[in-house]
């Protein structure tokens, strides 16, 4: 491989060569620059190849024919090669992107760009302190020039502020360097590291100055107003370079410098980094300007990596994997987002709605955000996993907490932005059409996915991108041009095939969940046949969710479980976001889900004790002081998915606003993922005590409260889908309650709920969805009398509500029966009472559902409505059949599970003799009940038909109405505020306290962000003062005042 020096030589040579070209030869100059950048990239790529395929040991390059430390030397190791490659590629792509600007500005700008790239590489390569300083100066000065590529007039001021700041930094750095030199007699970083005690003598002031100067170059929060102004006003292509290239380079410099500082200085790096990560993300919450937001995000990400650098000592040989994963993901994503912002005319976040109608760009946008947040299958995900595990292994819990909190904030504003871009009214300005720019962006997307692949391969855990379900889901990205019919068939076939293939390996519990999630998913997908066109984005998202679910069920190690969990979260987020007005709800879903996922991550990390390959079975071995905390974290994490009360506020909107066929997916299927998690947790860890409190007892309470509040809220909804959504909260409360009872029947009941809730909730969502589709509204009081027009939907709802309310003879009763038997064995009576209370309330909202939609007076505007589309009705009818079958022979599904549960709870198994199911307390014979009820019903019906054989069907308004004949349906359909008396009596329970609580937290965060960011006054001098203040404060903190 050619010497790494050529990276610098080519860059410089080309820059000088540009001066020889005539001003008019724009294309020539541009060509030379591109060629040089390509050449530099190639050299780096070659080195990456050589070092990655060889033993990876770094190569030293000496200059002046003299060995270090007497002459400057460079080093090309794997990290250096990768970083320079990323820097050079960023430079190259930005140059391509800047084509028009560069033609306009001429060769001087090109030369500056070349030197910027070269110098950033130099920072990475050099092993000499002063040489490092020179390259830093080059980068700073080149920044001062490249800022001006922007058309934004304000860039000038920003550039000046930047220069002022860099002046201060220079002063500190030089003073530090010279004293460090004086102490050690060398300028070579490695040489200094060898005698680091000399540098650190006397408080390490010299090192402090050098270190703080490099840190300041990282634009640390909060001393970074100057950098933010540059990010905001510079040309996006340059901001991309500033964030990706010079940020990476400076980080690497910090890393090198810490070789000198040794382990005593690492905590300081972590401290500064983590403050930056959390602080900048917090401030970003209040941002309206896209590029400034990205600037904050850059600051945050760099802070995170600095924090990781500070943890270098404990990460060991995984350090490069972790820091590199986050760094490269950040670089690609940030560059990509800045490049993308160049296509957008407006500068508000909402202006990105111009992307609507450009699915490829939206895909790019989504990929970049996923890269930044660290979602699977991107490098940040693997890195985050190993990082958190390693940190937890050393007991650095507070750091984990801060990292995850910051990441959550970041995900919050990024996904909020994404939601706005997708759902807000499309901005009038079109997206710029430039094939060059798009090619650059797509290259970044490809790079991001490529990194995902590589990091997966390097990961200690499996490569997610090679997991068949995920591959299958991502395959739909390629199939997007096909019509919906083909894709739907493929999706269904895929789900069924995967189920069949995996069938032999499932244990009974997994089988039930797999049947509900995969076969159930396929069943719901039948409804998707009714959509037309291509339905861009639906199938990748849906299949991603299903892939996550499929992987979740069979996951054996914590990593696989967590990866599956995140995958299904992302997939479902995109699915939910597709709804018409679902933007805020999808966001809250995402935030809650990610928060939950982070808790799960933290829980696993605590349990894993530093082992990234931790298996789920290992949860059993977690010892006492830690176990309850692990239990608590995991349980809360899972409960965000089951929408337990307190964590439920995302659910109603998300489920209600989703598309017709999405609602049953996210309600009928997705919620079960949380239950599955709880199952896994309880099976592994059993019951845990914290400060003498039985944790399952608390879950019991939460389940009961969820049941009560969910049901009560549902009774007061006017929106049919919201009603069903709240009902899900209640139903999941039951299931949680059952699980938390920690006995045989409780678990059986929870499983019964898994099946039942899937069937009837999917069915109800489909039929209500069909009705909403036909009537154009979801407000129940606007409907009425649809029974004659939509009889099949009516039947589905009727069967659904009978089953759901637990009224015999349908399957819901089985659940109730098991439940009553189960609670007879537990001692926690108070929460049980709540469950009792919530039981009848379910009856209220269910009745309301059927009454106000299908009964009562038909509205004038609905007289011509037809039955719901065939493909919506078909699955409903299948569900009806399933319900009937399950009602008659519940043993079919439950018997094996009953036996399976016996290994965890041997007592309390049911007896399955003949037609009667017996428990220790009672008995239940589903078929007998069905027959008795059926016979009575049939006889009476026959009798009534007989005596009423001549009954005359009357017109709609032919009722006894105080002597009047009403002629308007509105006056006679009593449907709005249906349970007003109930509200009067119990309304206080439905005060949206939880919603207010979370809203208050969000407001608090936003308000503080909005207030605190006024720190950035815009005055360059103030920024410089803040810079110095940062130095002094850090110094004081360091010395302990």
């Amino acid at each position: 491989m050619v010497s790494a020096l050529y990276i610098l030589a080519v860059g410089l040579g080309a820059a000088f060569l540009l001066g020889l070209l005539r001003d008019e030869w724009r294309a020539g100059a541009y060509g030379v620059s591109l060629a040089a950048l390509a050449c530099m990239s190639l050299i780096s790529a070659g080195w990456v190849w050589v070092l990655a395929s060889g033993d990876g040991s770094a190569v030293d390059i000496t200059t002046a024919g003299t060995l270090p430390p007497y002459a400057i030397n460079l080093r090309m190791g794997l990290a250096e090669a990768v970083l320079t490659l990323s820097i050079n590629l960023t430079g190259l792509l930005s140059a391509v992107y800047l084509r028009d600007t560069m033609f306009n500005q001429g060769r001087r700008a090109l030369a500056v760009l070349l030197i910027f790239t070269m110098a950033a590489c130099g920072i990475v390569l050099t092993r000499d302190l002063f040489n490092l300083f020179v390259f830093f100066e080059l980068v700073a000065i080149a920044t001062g020039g490249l800022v001006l590529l922007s058309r934004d007039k304000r860039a000038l001021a920003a550039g000046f502020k930047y220069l002022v700041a860099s002046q201060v930094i220079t002063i500190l750095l030089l003073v530090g360097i010279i004293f460090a030199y004086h102490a050690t007699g060398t300028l070579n970083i490695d040489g200094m590291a060898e005698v680091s005690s000399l540098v650190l003598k006397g408080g390490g002031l010299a090192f402090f100055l050098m270190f703080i100067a490099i840190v300041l170059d990282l634009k640390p929060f909060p001393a970074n107003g100057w950098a933010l102004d540059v990010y905001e006003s510079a040309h996006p292509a340059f901001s991309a370079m500033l964030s990706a290239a010079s940020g990476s380079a400076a980080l690497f410099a910090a890393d090198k410098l810490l070789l000198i500082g040794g382990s005593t200085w690492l905590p300081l790096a972590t401290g500064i980094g983590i403050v930056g990560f959390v602080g900048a993300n917090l401030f970003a919450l209040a941002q309206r300007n896209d590029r400034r937001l990205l600037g904050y995000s850059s600051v945050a990400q760099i802070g995170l990596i600095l924090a990781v650098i500070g943890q270098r000592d404990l990460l060991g040989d995984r350090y490069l994997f972790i820091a590199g994963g986050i760094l490269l993901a950040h670089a690609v994503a940030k560059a990509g987002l800045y490049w993308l912002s160049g296509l957008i005319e407006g500068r508000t976040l909402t202006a990105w709605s111009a992307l609507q109608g450009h699915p490829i760009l939206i895909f790019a946008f989504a990929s970049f955000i996923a890269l930044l947040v660290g979602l699977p299958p991107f490098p940040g995900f693997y890195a985050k996993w190993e990082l958190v595990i390693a940190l937890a292994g050393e007991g650095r819990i507070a750091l984990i907490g801060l990292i995850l909190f910051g990441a959550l904030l970041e995900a919050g504003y990024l996904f909020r932005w994404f939601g706005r871009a997708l759902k807000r009214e499309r901005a009038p300005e079109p997206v710029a059409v430039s094939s060059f720019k798009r090619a650059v962006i797509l290259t970044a997307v490809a790079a991001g996915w490529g990194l995902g692949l590589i990091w997966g391969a390097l990961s200690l855990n499996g490569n997610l991108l090679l997991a068949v379900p995920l591959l299958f889901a991502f395959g739909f990205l390629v199939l997007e041009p096909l019509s919906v019919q083909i894709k739907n068939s493929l999706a269904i076939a895929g789900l069924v095939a995967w189920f069949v293939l995996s069938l032999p390996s499932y244990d009974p519990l997994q089988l039930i969940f797999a049947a509900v999630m995969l076969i159930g998913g396929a069943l719901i997908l039948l409804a998707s046949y009714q959509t037309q066109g291509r339905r861009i984005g639906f199938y990748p998202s849906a299949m991603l969710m299903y892939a996550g679910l499929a992987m979740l069920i069979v996951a054996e190690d914590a990593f696989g479980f967590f990866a599956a969990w995140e995958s299904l979260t992302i997939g479902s987020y995109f699915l939910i976001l597709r709804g018409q007005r679902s933007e805020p709800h999808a966001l809250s879903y995402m935030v809650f889900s990610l928060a939950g996922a982070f808790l799960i991550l933290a829980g696993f990390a605590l349990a894993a004790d530093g082992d990234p390959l931790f298996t789920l079975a290992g949860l059993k071995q977690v010892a006492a002081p830690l176990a309850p905390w692990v239990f608590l974290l995991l349980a809360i994490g899972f409960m965000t998915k089951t929408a337990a009360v307190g964590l439920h506020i995302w659910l109603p909107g998300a489920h209600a606003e989703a598309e017709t066929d999405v609602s049953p997916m996210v309600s009928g299927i997705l919620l079960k993922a949380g239950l599955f998690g709880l199952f896994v947790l309880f099976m592994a860890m059993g019951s845990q005590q914290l400060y003498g409190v039985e944790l399952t007892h608390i879950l019991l309470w939460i389940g009961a409260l969820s049941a009560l509040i969910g049901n009560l809220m549902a009774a007061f909804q006017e929106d049919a889908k919201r009603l069903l959504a709240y009902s899900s909260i209640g139903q999941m409360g039951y299931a949680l309650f059952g699980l938390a009872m920690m006995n045989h029947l409780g678990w059986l009941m929870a499983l019964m709920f898994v099946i039942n809730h899937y069937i009837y909730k999917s069915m109800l969502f489909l039929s209500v969805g069909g009705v909403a589709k036909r009537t154009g509204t979801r407000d129940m009081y606007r409907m009425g009398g649809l029974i004659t027009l939509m009889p099949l939907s009516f039947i589905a709802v009727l069967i659904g509500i009978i089953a759901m309310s637990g009224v015999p003879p349908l399957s819901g009763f089985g659940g109730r029966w098991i439940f009553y038997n189960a609670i007879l064995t537990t001692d926690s009576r108070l929460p049980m009472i709540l469950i009792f209370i919530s039981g009848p309330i379910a009856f209220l909202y269910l009745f309301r559902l059927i009454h106000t939609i299908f009964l009562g007076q038909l509205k004038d505007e609905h007289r011509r409505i037809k039955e719901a589309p065939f493909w919506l009705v078909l699955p409903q009818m299948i569900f009806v059949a399933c319900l009937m079958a399950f009602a008659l022979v519940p043993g079919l599904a439950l018997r094996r599970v009953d036996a399976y549960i016996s290994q965890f709870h041997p007592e309390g198994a049911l007896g399955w003799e003949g037609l009667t199911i017996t428990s220790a307390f009672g008995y239940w014979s589903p078929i007998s009940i069905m027959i008795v009820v059926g016979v009575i019903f049939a006889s009476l019906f026959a009798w009534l038909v007989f005596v009423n054989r001549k009954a005359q069907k009357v017109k709609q308004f032919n009722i006894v109405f105080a002597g009047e004949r009403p002629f308007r349906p509105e006056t006679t359909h009593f449907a709005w505020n249906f349970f007003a008396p109930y509200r009067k009596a119990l309304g206080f329970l439905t005060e949206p306290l939880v919603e207010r609580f979370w809203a208050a937290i969000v407001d608090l965060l936003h308000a503080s962000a909005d207030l605190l960011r006024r720190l950035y006054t815009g005055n360059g001098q103030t920024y410089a003062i803040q810079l110095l203040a940062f130095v002094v404060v850090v110094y004081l903190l360091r010395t302990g005042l």
Partner: protein
Amino acid sequence: MSFEWIKIPYALLTLFIVANYGFLLTAVMAKIAARVGRRHGIPVWQNYLDLIKNYGLRSSITHGVMFYMGPVFRLTGGVGLLMFVPTLYGTEMFSNMSFAGDLILALYFVFFGSLGMALGAGESGHPYSAIGVTRGLSQVTAAELPFALAVYAVAVQYQTLSVTEIVAAQQGGILQWTLFTNPIAVAAAMLSFLGTMMRPPFDVVLAPQEIPIGPPTEYHSSYLALMQTNRAIFPIAKIVIYMNLFFGGAASWPAFFLKVFLIYLVSVIVGVVFPRFRVEQSIRWFLIWAVPLGVIAIMIA
């Protein structure tokens, strides 16, 4: 316990006895209430007259399928409830179809009729029906709650969900009755009982004295006849449960008649003393007075 064909004629016999007893009993109760109010009241055979009259009506209209099904549901609920609970303790003859399920079945089957009724009434499209339904559902859900709690307390007390076993445990003297062994549960259940009997002060659902208002508003002729039949059977069926759970059950028909009469009388007496509650008032009343009793019953059980 399992099915034998002989159970069918036995069950029909039970049904016959209970229905007739129900017709007479409701009339007697109405008369008692009237007398307390210094009115003359109806004759005891009034129910039979009404029944004949309703079946005799020739005008017969329908508002649709569910309208048709409403009374069927209603009566199925009443008859089914009767069938799923053994009427007389210790006799194979009058234990009906109780092999199909236990107390839980009975508890939930109570709702079957209400649901069907509400559906049928809804189909009629009459606003007053809907108003009646909302009131009825609101009140019933609140009223059933203390009962459910009490039932659970009893089930815990006897460690079984089988009605027969619960009755069996109460044999051997009046002091063995749940009434005395678990008075709080019984108190809660009896308060609940007041609410579900659709008598004053909890009769705003039907509002029988005003212009027709309530779920059956639109029903007439044979529909109404079915519902009237149910109005005779359903209370008895419910009282049977109360009797079995709290008052030692009945081993013979005389004991049965007496106990059912007395239990029924409780609601009538309360009804003539108190004025009518609005629905939200009754909900609050149940929550404030009856539910806590039920809670206490469970906690000490």
